[in-house]
C-alpha cells in the first residue's frame, strides 16, 4: 500500500516534465533563421536610436534659431543697400537649387525593404537591397527622369554631389551610413512618377520579381523633404572667371 501512494504523483511529474521539454523544443524551433538574439537587445538599440534622433532634433532647432538671428541682423543692416538685398535674393535662389532648403509639395513615397526570409529562401544574413544598391541608384535616376524636383532617401537629400555607395557593410548616402527599410520621398507630378516606376518590366517590377524585395508606393498630396544637412565645401572647384 505504501509503495502505491507515490505512483500517481510520479505520473503527474513525468507528464509535467514531458510538457516542459516539448515547450522548450517548440520555442527553439520557432525562432528566426540564423543566430538568436534576445529581443531585449534590439529594444535597447531602438531606445538609443530614439535618443539620438531627439538629440538631432534639438541640435537642428538650435541651428535654425541661430540662422534666424543671423538673418535678422543681415536684414536690419542691409535694408537700405539695394546691392546687398539683391545678393541676398540670389543666395536664396542658389540655396534652393543646391538643396539647402526644406521643401514641400505633392509627390510619392516609395518604401523598399528586404525580402521576408522563408523556409525555401532563408537568406544569408545579408541585406539584398544593400548589396544591390545600384537598384536604389537606378530608382533615383528614374525619379529624376519622371521630373522629380526634390528627392530624399531615409532623410538624406539627394543633391548634386550625392553618392550611393557600398562602404564596407554599409550603404553610405551623403557619407552617412543607412540601412533598410529605405523610404524614398520624391516631389513632382505624382501620377507621372508612379507610372514611370510601375511600368511593366520597370524598376519596381524588377525589384519585386527578381529580388523579392518588398516595394510600396503611395501618392501624397503634400510631403516635406528636408534640406541637405552636411557641410558644403569646395576645395578644388573655383568659379570660372570668364563666365562672370
Amino acid at each position: 500500500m505504501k509503495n502505491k501512494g507515490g505512483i500517481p504523483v510520479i505520473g503527474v511529474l513525468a507528464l509535467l516534465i514531458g510538457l516542459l521539454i516539448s515547450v522548450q523544443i517548440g520555442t527553439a524551433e520557432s525562432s528566426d533563421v540564423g543566430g538568436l538574439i534576445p529581443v531585449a537587445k534590439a529594444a535597447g538599440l531602438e531606445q538609443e536610436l530614439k535618443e539620438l534622433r531627439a538629440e538631432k532634433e534639438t541640435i537642428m532647432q538650435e541651428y535654425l534659431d541661430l540662422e534666424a538671428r543671423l538673418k535678422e541682423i543681415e536684414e536690419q543692416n542691409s535694408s537700405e543697400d539695394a546691392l546687398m538685398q539683391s545678393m541676398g535674393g540670389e543666395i536664396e535662389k542658389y540655396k534652393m537649387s543646391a538643396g539647402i532648403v526644406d521643401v514641400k509639395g505633392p509627390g510619392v513615397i516609395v518604401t523598399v525593404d528586404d525580402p521576408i526570409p522563408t523556409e525555401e529562401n532563408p537568406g544569408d544574413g545579408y541585406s539584398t537591397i544593400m548589396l544591390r544598391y545600384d537598384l536604389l541608384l537606378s530608382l533615383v535616376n528614374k525619379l529624376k527622369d519622371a521630373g522629380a524636383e526634390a528627392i530624399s532617401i531615409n532623410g538624406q537629400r539627394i543633391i548634386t554631389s550625392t553618392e550611393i555607395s557600398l562602404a564596407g557593410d554599409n550603404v553610405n548616402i551623403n557619407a552617412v551610413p543607412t540601412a533598410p527599410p529605405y523610404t524614398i520621398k520624391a516631389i513632382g507630378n505624382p501620377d507621372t512618377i508612379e507610372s514611370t516606376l510601375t511600368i511593366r518590366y520597370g524598376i519596381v517590377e524588377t525589384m519585386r520579381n527578381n529580388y523579392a524585395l518588398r516595394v510600396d508606393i503611395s501618392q501624397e498630396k503634400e510631403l516635406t523633404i528636408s534640406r541637405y544637412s552636411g557641410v558644403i565645401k569646395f576645395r578644388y572647384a573655383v568659379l570660372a572667371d570668364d563666365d562672370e
Partner: protein
Amino acid sequence: MLYLRMTMSRRAADGEMKRSFLLMIVFCFLLSFSAVVLAQTSKGQHLYVSPKVLDDYKITIEGEKKEIENLNTLVSESRKKLEQYEALVAEDKDIGRELKQQLEQDLELYSLASGDVAVKGPGVKVYIDDGQRKLESWETPNNILVHDSDLLLIINDLKASGAEAISINGQRIVDVTAISCSGYTVRINDQFFARPFRIEAIGDGSRMSAALIGPGGYGTELKEWGLIFKVTVADDILIPAYAESHAYKYISPAVN
C-alpha cells in the same frame, strides 16, 4: 536525467516514505516554478530577433551619429558668425562691410553648389566608347556597348571619391539630372548624346582615377568586357553651367 533521478527516488521511497514525500514536494515546487518562468518568457511574440535586424539598427545609429556630427559643425560655424556680428554691434562699429563680405562668400559657395555657374579646377577626364573587338558567337552586342547604367555607376563612383563638379559631353550634372538610354542615344538633361562619352570631373584627380581604374574599379570591369575606357588626370578642367533653368513647378520652400 531528471526522470532517472526520480525513479531512483521512487526506489528510495520504498524505505523512507517521509523523505520521499519531502523530495517530491521539492520537485513539484521546482517544476511549477520553471513552468511559470517558461510561460512568462514565451508571452511576447518575438522572443528573438535575427542578427540582421540588430545590424540594421547599428548602421542606422551610426548614421544618426554622423548626422549629429554634421549638424554640430553647422551650428559652430553659425555661432562663430553670430558672435562676430554681435561683437561688432556691441562696439557700435559699422557692421555693413563685414556683412557684405559674408554675403559675397555665401554667394560664391551656394552658386558653386547650385551648378548654375561654370567652374574650373583640377580633376580627371574619362573617355568611354563601345568595344571594337569581334563578338563571340554566343554574345549579344550589349556586352560591348556603353549603357546608361554604366554612365550612372561611373558618375556615382566619381561622386563617392569626392568629385565637386561633373559633366558628360559638356552637360553639367546637377541634382535633377537623369541619364537614360533611348535607343541609340543617351538622354542627359533632356539633350541627346551618342558614343563616345567624355566625362570630366573636378576634384582630387588621383583619388578619382584610382577609384575607377584600380582593382575592382568599374572602369577595370568595363575594360575586361572589351569596352574602351581611358582616364587621364588634368590640371585645368572647365565645366560649364547647367544649361537649363532651375524652374520649379512642384516644390516650394517649407517654412518651419
